[in-house]
């Protein structure tokens, strides 16, 4: 028999049920095609970090922690602070997740979430400079994935965004040539709230916020991120299937529409009014 770890095989019974329901515009858990599962956001759960958030979408559960430290800027951008976004699919989260360095799927996840935040210019990194060319603030956003049931892209993204929106970091200053922390704690310089929306294509149907089972049968996946002005700032198509041109354009509309709804949830959870 094969020594490769078996990934989720969806029962034929469930697959048939899924297809039947999709034809009626419904899904196995009773949702409509454009309905998200319950989104819960809790901030400040890791008090030692500068910012943190636990996000659950259905049973998918992740925790993001933000640490703001000092560092040296990149040589080609001496007047900008640093933003590093990372995600780890922990072996706790699923019987199919193995311990070890991140695989291509997890790396793609981390990079897509990173781009959604970076390209939206959510953080004004020019405001994160202590001494140009020498010392800047480095914002680390790390995500630990605790339980998977589909749609890691959105769950991870919302956790990082919520943690950044609610973060408070210690300001540093140079005293007698030495870098010292001050007593001042501030919110990060934030400009917009990027919201990612992920859809899956199953047969001819497009559904938002796929579960593990839906992802196991999907042909392709599309993640689109919008900013507070409704501009689309990042996107990624994943999996070896295809989308028609219409489906791509509809995806953009869906992302803008659902993005607005979820942006309000993020505002409420973090108290951020921008």
């Amino acid at each position, binding site marked *: *028999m*094969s020594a490769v770890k*078996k990934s989720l*095989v*969806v*029962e*034929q*019974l*469930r697959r048939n*049920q899924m297809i039947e329901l999709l034809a009626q515009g419904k899904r196995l858990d009773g949702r409509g095609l454009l309905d998200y599962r319950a989104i819960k956001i809790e901030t400040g759960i890791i008090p030692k970090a500068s910012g943190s958030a636990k996000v659950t979408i259905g049973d998918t559960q992740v925790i993001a922690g933000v640490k703001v430290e000092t560092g040296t800027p990149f040589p080609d951008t001496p007047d900008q602070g640093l933003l590093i976004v990372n995600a780890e699919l922990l072996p706790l989260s699923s019987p199919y997740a193995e311990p070890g360095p991140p695989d291509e799927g997890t790396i793609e996840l981390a990079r897509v979430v990173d781009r959604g935040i970076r390209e939206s210019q959510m953080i004004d990194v020019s405001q994160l400079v202590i001494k140009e060319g020498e010392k800047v603030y480095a914002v680390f956003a790390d995500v630990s994935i605790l339980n998977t049931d589909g749609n890691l892209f959105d769950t991870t993204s919302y956790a990082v965004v919520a943690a950044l929106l609610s973060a408070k970091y210690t300001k540093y200053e140079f005293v007698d040539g030495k870098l010292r922390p001050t007593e001042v704690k501030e919110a990060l310089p934030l400009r917009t709230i990027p919201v990612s929306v992920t859809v899956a294509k199953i047969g001819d149907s497009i559904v938002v916020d796929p579960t593990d089972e839906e992802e196991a049968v999907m042909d392709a996946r599309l993640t689109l991120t919008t900013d507070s002005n409704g501009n689309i700032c990042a996107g990624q198509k994943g999996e070896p299937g295809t989308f028609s041109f219409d489906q791509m354009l509809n995806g953009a509309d869906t992302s803008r529409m659902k993005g607005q709804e979820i942006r309000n949830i993020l505002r409420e959870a973090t108290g951020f009014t921008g």
Partner: protein
Amino acid sequence: MPDIRRKYVIPGELIAEGNYRPVANVFRVGEKYYSTRVGMAEVGHEGVRVIPLSGPYIPRVDDLVVGKVVDYSAFAWEVDINSCFFAFLPAQSVFGRDYSPAEDSLTSKFAVGDILAAKIFAFDRTRDPLLGLAGPGLGRIPRGEIVKITPTKVPRLIGKRGSMIRTIEMATNCRLTIGQNGVVVITGSPDGVLMSLKAIKLVEEEAHTADLTQKVQALLGQGGATT
């Protein structure tokens, strides 16, 4: 029941002292008997045992199980039976003794994702469980709603001599196929299936409490106290 003492226990708790027969989930040091699991300890004339409230399904020969085909080779289908091991259904048991990999193709019979009701006909500490389909009601289950319960609660769902499963089937007009491995398939009308799911959930949550039968009957809209 006379003379059965019951107590909730966790692993390592002392259940009894004396000379007893250790029946299940108990380990013995001298004349002391300790629980190995979280569950309900029973001490009686027949011995000492713990009925566990959680835990994996350990295959036993002759058990009826409901499994999912996850892979196949030239000689067998590999079946997920919700246990520590994957089980194998030999091609010979389906195609017959003169099965030839060159002529009979496994996928013509069962495909990946198919649900099977099967019996465990061989299992020991040295090899993976082997399944067989010889017997009434065994074979591929083409339709129905699948739900999983903790394997240790299957006896409660079946009930004394099948009383609980019959109660649910009659009230909902559905057919329940219950695998000892905790996988249940329900076939019937959508409303019946929904009601069956509620009853199963109730058994799962309240398996260790008193009046379970009454609670299930109340849920299914039946009064009275027949078991």
